[in-house]
């Protein structure tokens, strides 16, 4: 049994606590910097009997996801964690998990992709997986990471889709913060045991995942999309319930000083914390600046984004990632959410997309102020992506 209480722990360990409290039953994981502490603590929990789970020390991430899939299909709550290349190696199986409608929860520590090697934070790894059918939650703090593991299971098991929570390498994974570890009984109350309606069962034998003809496949894809859409409502409700039970909630997005803002920053992950500082400071100077934190990226919270950003004149999206050949991914998503609002003379905020902080480069308050200044000084962006903090 996990001891509740307030502890100062790293983001990685917060994830471990989350998974243990969620009573993960099968954990299959492969070590990769900077995820290793997640699985190390879970291994300890298992060894000490604090967590009653089977820990499979797989020989690669691809096998980790395959093992989670096998376990989840057999009716067990499955958990894994990875990062960057490990996530990329799992790519094939991420598709498989979503198509098989298995509510696996995975923590991905955002880390830059090689070549060349880098171990520092960057969102390209998780965003490369945005179309596979997994829910994606971007966490800002260690507390949020712990809480999101539990919420993720709740949502995932309701809509039968896998979910990943994402946390920044080193800034969260290896940074200690005070974290409230909730009591197991409350978690059990909030998150009942996993009971899938269909699973691998010798009493009721069926074949799962058989080859599907064009005449049937599309409906199954339709169902996944419908489940994603349903997940928006389910995630909202789950977060609200979490707030009731544990006293903490995060929403799908979080507006910060956004009422009557003329310029809105859009951020995700730890950049949000830095951005809050800047926004507070500029507001105290009278600037009508605000911030929208995007927490749930998949399914994309279009409604919330529209609601919060439609009336803003300018939007500055900070992407700690880049979709090569196009631009920052959050910027693209925001633009696409807002575009049709502008039909028939509706609101048309200008969206400025900034690329910053790749490969763990520091994203400082000064840099964010530069971004705000740049945006304030122009009616429209000079190009669709603007590099910030790069030696050009």
């Amino acid at each position, binding site marked *: 049994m996990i001891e509740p209480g307030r502890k100062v722990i790293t983001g990685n360990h917060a994830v471990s606590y989350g998974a243990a409290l969620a009573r993960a039953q*099968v954990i299959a994981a492969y070590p990769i910097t900077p995820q290793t502490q997640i699985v190390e603590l879970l291994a300890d929990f298992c060894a000490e009997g604090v967590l009653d789970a089977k820990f499979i020390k*797989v020989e*690669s991430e691809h096998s980790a996801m395959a093992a989670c899939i096998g376990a989840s299909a057999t009716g067990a709550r499955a958990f894994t964690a990875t990062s960057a290349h490990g996530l990329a190696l799992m790519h094939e199986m991420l598709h498989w998990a979503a198509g098989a409608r298995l509510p696996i929860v995975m923590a991905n520590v955002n880390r830059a992709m090689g070549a060349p090697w880098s171990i520092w934070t960057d969102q390209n790894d998780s965003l490369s997986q945005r179309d596979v059918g997994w829910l994606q939650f971007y966490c800002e703090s260690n507390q949020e990471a712990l809480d999101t593991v539990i919420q993720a299971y709740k949502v995932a098991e309701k809509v039968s889709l896998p979910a990943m929570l994402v946390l920044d390498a080193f800034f969260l994974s290896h940074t200690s913060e005070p974290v409230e570890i909730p009591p197991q009984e409350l978690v059990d109350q909030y998150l009942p045991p996993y009971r899938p309606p269909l699973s691998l069962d010798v009493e009721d034998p069926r*074949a799962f995942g058989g080859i599907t003809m064009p005449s049937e496949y599309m409906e199954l894809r339709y169902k996944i999309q419908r489940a994603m859409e349903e997940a928006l409502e389910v995630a909202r409700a789950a977060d609200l319930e979490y707030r009731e039970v544990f006293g903490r909630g995060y929403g799908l997005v979080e507006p910060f000083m956004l009422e009557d803002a003329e310029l809105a920053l859009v951020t995700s992950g730890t950049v949000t914390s830095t951005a809050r500082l800047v926004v507070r400071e500029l507001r105290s100077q009278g600037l009508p600046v605000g911030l929208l934190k995007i927490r749930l990226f998949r399914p994309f919270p279009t409604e919330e984004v529209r609601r919060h950003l439609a009336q803003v004149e300018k939007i500055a999206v900070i992407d700690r990632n880049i979709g090569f050949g196009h631009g920052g991914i959050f910027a693209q998503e925001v633009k696409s959410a807002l575009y049709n609002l502008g039909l028939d003379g509706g609101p048309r905020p200008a969206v400025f997309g900034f690329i910053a902080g790749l490969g763990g480069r520091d994203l400082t308050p000064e840099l964010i102020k530069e971004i705000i200044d740049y945006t304030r000084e122009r009616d429209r962006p000079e190009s669709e992506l603007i590099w910030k903090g790069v030696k050009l």
Partner: protein
Amino acid sequence: MGTDLHELREESSPFPIRGTMPSRELLLPGHVACPGCGAALAMRYVLKALGERTIVVLPACCWTIIAGAFPYSALKVPVFHTAFETAASAASGVRAALEVTGQEDVTVLAWAGDGGTFDIGLQALSGAAERNDDILYVCYDNEAYMNTGIQRSSATPLKAWTTTTPEKHPKDEPKKDMMAIMAAHRIPYAATASPAYPEDLVRKVKRAKATRGTKFIHIICPCPPGWKASSELSVKLARLAVQTKVFPLYEVEDGVKYTINLEPEGLPVKEYLRLQGRFRHLTEEDIELIQRTVDLEWERLVAKARDSR
């Protein structure tokens, strides 16, 4: 809910088949294996030996298709289709889940072709074997990537034709010794089998079922279109492979104790090769080379068996 599979024809005979084999059928007709498919026969026997408390983990291979398209199944046991290289890893996950949810006495059967075992699936199999995960891994070996149209794998025998080793450039490398690889992992039980010797196959599967840990069974499965042999000869070829010592029947315990199950009289390999179009381009030298190789490997096997007594 769903089709009550217990209504379906259960026993194909009022007596044990050939006097000793279970008559309960867990493979249904209507599956889409080619006529004369050795792999279909292999599955039929393995499931007879394992019974209905079996979960099949099925990666990409001929059996992906044979098993039937959604929403139909050809097996009366649960089946989990999974990606090509993940038979062993998905099976490990299934086993872990069975243990943690308290489901006792269920066999986890990973059922993969030679491609998914010798090549792309080798890593996952090695991982599971090294961890000694409690799964029964059966490789049904038709000696090429048959499902995708007869391309060579590392299980393709020396000199065989495939679409990627055409007659002017047949396979130059010998068949990978998968049993040696599994023995090197020191798993509790590994064995070869042939559908022409069904009683031996059933005995080995039952033995594997009663063993805890990773078990590996390698079954030679003739493939009429891939081997370019008449469909009626599949059982005969599976027998000749054993009788010519191309595919000896033996067991390995804990990776070190070798037991040869059958000492064939030793027909010349020519008897086996001449029935298959994939070997029709062989010269006399080729056949002699193959014969020498077979004889040498047999001697090595005999030595291993002798040394482990």
